[in-house]
């Protein structure tokens, strides 16, 4: 047997194609490129939105015009020309589906390729899925089952029409329109997204899930997710994404707001697998996402993310721990390969007494990629007995990549207890040798070691996602020997 060398592995890795890089020819209804007030009014009109929503969008647009693109992140990229993007693209003649049989077969084929075949999941996993293609929600399954419990799970557009009181009350409360450049842009032009409301004391019986896909060329995806868990409720929410392989860069600027009222718990898991660009660094998705959750008394928000895709990622899922005894958690695995750049982390803002937060971040960089952790732990003067534990570990594979850690810790209360630790290392040759000795080939050994390195985070994922995430990790990394 010829020796499987590092170069072989590298080659294999480079040629490994992005599996989700197909393009589905679905007739779609796309607005002309450019961004101005007319476009925003047109989007709003197309969505048949009430007047308050149009006003809200225009206000956000006005504020966005005064803002400038942030430059502090540790990523380098050519700024997208926001006037060259179409801000609305939807599968045309969108009918209202009641069951999957009515769905365009072409679309169903797309799901099959994605491996999230809707009906399969419907039968087996018992996961309610909301599928968003080019930021328009096309299918929501299990609606009736959820309805019985009083759970609202629908597209944002539908929620604006049918539950305006809820949307109006909560939208923009956690992430204000002016929060940052991309959040403001999203507020102005978002085309759809998911809305979820769990009533008081209800434990959502199944995992809720949204699948995002950018299909059309020259479009940006701007979806908005709002999850409200009323007092004492529980929900676990999953999010997945993919995009076709294209030479150009596509922009994804989403906003996710979570609101956990007293005693509620929200678990939000993401497996992000946007097209990362080819091995020369061409194309790929720019992923500029704002995610934030608000915890009232005794509430808990847990973010879990597996980041394997995107050419450039800029994402900080955060928790505002406003209520007493509230808990925030952040578990993340970020894998970068080839020319990918990720600047990701979290913010834990401790405002209430006895608030606790945990941050576990695992960064794996290979190829020529750059992987940064950027986090903030802030303890306000009122946050007595706040507790934080952060751990950021980086694994470097190959000598052309970089791993960076930028933790910010700001403490204004003497009773706070904060611990932060970070390590950077490579896969030890002795570890690989040990595996080889026992008949495990190098490639498998790396998968094993990386899996072990990421275990703490993988364990936090719901079953269905954990399997997918594990596979993704193997695919993204297989072939990179340290």
């Amino acid at each position, binding site marked *: 047997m010829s020796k499987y060398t590092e170069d072989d592995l590298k080659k294999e890795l480079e040629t490994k194609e992005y599996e989700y890089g197909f393009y589905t020819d679905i007739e779609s209804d796309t607005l002309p490129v450019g961004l101005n007030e007319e476009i925003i009014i047109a989007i709003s009109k197309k969505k048949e939105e009430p007047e308050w929503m149009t006003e809200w969008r225009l206000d956000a647009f006005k504020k966005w015009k005064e803002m400038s693109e942030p430059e502090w992140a540790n990523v380098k990229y050519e700024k997208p020309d926001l006037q060259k993007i179409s801000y609305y693209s939807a599968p045309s003649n969108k009918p209202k589906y009641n069951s999957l049989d009515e769905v365009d077969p072409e679309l169903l084929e797309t799901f099959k390729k994605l491996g999230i075949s809707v009906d399969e999941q419907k039968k087996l996993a018992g996961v309610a899925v909301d599928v968003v293609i080019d930021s328009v929600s096309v299918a929501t399954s299990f609606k009736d089952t959820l309805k019985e419990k009083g759970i609202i799970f629908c597209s944002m557009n539908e929620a604006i029409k049918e539950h305006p009181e809820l949307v109006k009350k909560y939208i923009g409360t956690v992430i204000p329109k002016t929060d940052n450049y991309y959040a403001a842009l999203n507020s102005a032009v978002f085309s759809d997204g998911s809305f979820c409301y769990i009533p008081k004391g209800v434990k959502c019986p199944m995992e809720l899930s949204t699948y995002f896909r950018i299909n059309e060329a020259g479009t940006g995806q701007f979806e908005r997710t709002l999850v409200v868990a009323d007092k004492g409720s529980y929900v676990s929410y999953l999010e997945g994404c993919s995009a076709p392989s294209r030479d150009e860069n596509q922009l994804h600027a989403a906003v996710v707001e979570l609101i956990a009222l007293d005693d509620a718990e929200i678990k939000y898991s993401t497996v992000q697998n946007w097209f990362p660009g080819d091995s020369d660094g061409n194309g790929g998705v720019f992923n500029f996402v704002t995610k934030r959750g608000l915890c009232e008394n005794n509430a808990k928000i847990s973010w879990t993310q597996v980041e394997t895709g995107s050419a450039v990622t800029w994402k900080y899922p955060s928790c505002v721990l406003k209520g007493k005894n509230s808990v925030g958690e952040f578990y993340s695995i970020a894998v970068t390969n080839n020319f990918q750049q990720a600047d990701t982390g979290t913010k834990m803002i401790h405002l209430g007494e006895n608030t606790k937060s945990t941050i576990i971040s695992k960064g794996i960089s290979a190829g020529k990629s750059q992987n940064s952790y950027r986090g903030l732990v802030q303890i306000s003067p009122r946050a007595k007995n706040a507790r934080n534990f952060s751990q950021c570990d980086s694994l*470097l594979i190959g000598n052309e*990549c*970089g791993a960076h850690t930028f933790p*910010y*810790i*700001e403490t*204004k209360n003497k009773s706070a207890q904060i611990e*932060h630790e*970070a390590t*950077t290392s490579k896969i030890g040759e002795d570890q690989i040798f040990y595996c080889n000795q026992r008949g495990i080939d190098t490639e498998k050994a790396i998968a094993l070691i990386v899996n072990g390195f990421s275990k703490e985070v993988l364990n936090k994922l719901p079953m269905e996602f954990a399997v997918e995430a594990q596979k993704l990790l193997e695919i993204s990394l297989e072939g990179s020997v340290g």
Partner: protein
Amino acid sequence: MTQLKEKLLSSFIAFEDQKDIDSYVHGIRTKAIKTFEKEGFPTKKLENWKYTSLKKTLNYDYKLFPSETKALEFKDIKKYLIDDVESYKIIFVDGKYSSHLSETTHDGMDICILSSALNQSKYDLLIENYFDKISKKDGITSLNTAFSSEGSFIHIPKNVQVDKPIQVIYFSTGKNESVFYQPRNLIIVGENSQVEIIERHQSLSENSVLVNSVSEIYCNVRSVVKHYKVQNDKINASLIDNTFVSQERNSDYSLHTFSLGGELTRNNLSIAQNGERIESTINGITIIGENQHVDHNTLIHHKKPNCNSYQDYKGIFGGNSVGVFNGQVMVEKEAQKTNAFQSNNNVLISDKATINTKPQLEIFADDVKCSHGCTVGQLDQNALFYLRSRGIPEKEATALLMYGFANKVLGSVGIPQVKNRINDIIAKKLGVKIGFDI
């Protein structure tokens, strides 16, 4: 701020007029003042100054050159010296070299002052090779460069082990005025040489004093440099200390910074490792209260393989004090087998104290061992109870615990007299009368 800037710019012309305009340094100064004019003073908008504002400090009506200076006797300054150890002394009073208080030498090495090095042609080569070569060209350092005329000049040639430590002390007596000083140190340590340096800035004035100090330190092949900074100034004195260290292969540089006094203290420390097998150690103890502000901004730049760096900063913050730690470790692609450790531990003992800490790692090489740890907490209540149950009063028990917390850093101090002095200052600071010489 702008007022002060204008004043500085206009006084530069007068300052430069008295100097030799044909000299090599003149060109550097002129360039530096232009940089300062462009960059100005740092503001909170700069990432590196995010947690430290100079606004209040720069608001005083500073004189750049004191109008009158007080003659000091040895008895006036004795308590600020570490006097129980034989040492070379370079002492400045109000920016002027005080020869009767100092003890310098030209015997086999130069332990003297910068102004004489700048004015004597035999030092021209050294000045041209080393002066302003590694200092950062930012606003605050350029300001110092523009006005740099006096400070310590230490040049140790090859294979010399300096027999006793060197104390460099700057006093300011400013009677009726606030003064803004720009001392400049140039330290060149030759191959295989060893030296210990103790540095201190002390105000004896009732008025505000601001010191913007720049030190350039060159550690040549296999040299060993031990550097101690004692910062225990009066509450109306502020210090911006910029230290730039350049290390060659197999050299060993260690710095201990004791930040125990002053209104605002900002330490900009930057170490560049230019060769293989270099050791860099930087440790710090910060104990402050009231409205004091201490900011440690460190950078260790690993450029070559097989080097180690070790950082340990401990802080205890009371009153309304603010502590900042911004430690950066950068590992270049070439610097394989780097071993970098960074630790920052803080204790808050008051409800109004703040600590902002940002330990950063930027790593471009894969075969490295880099870790950092950072904690914020309070004293262990159980340990306190244990001590009190054995009859130790609360105040002393607290002091013992705090001392224990900071002790690890003191353990690596090489001169026992320095250690004792720091112990005394800490005991005084914590308001107890116990000797910590355990």
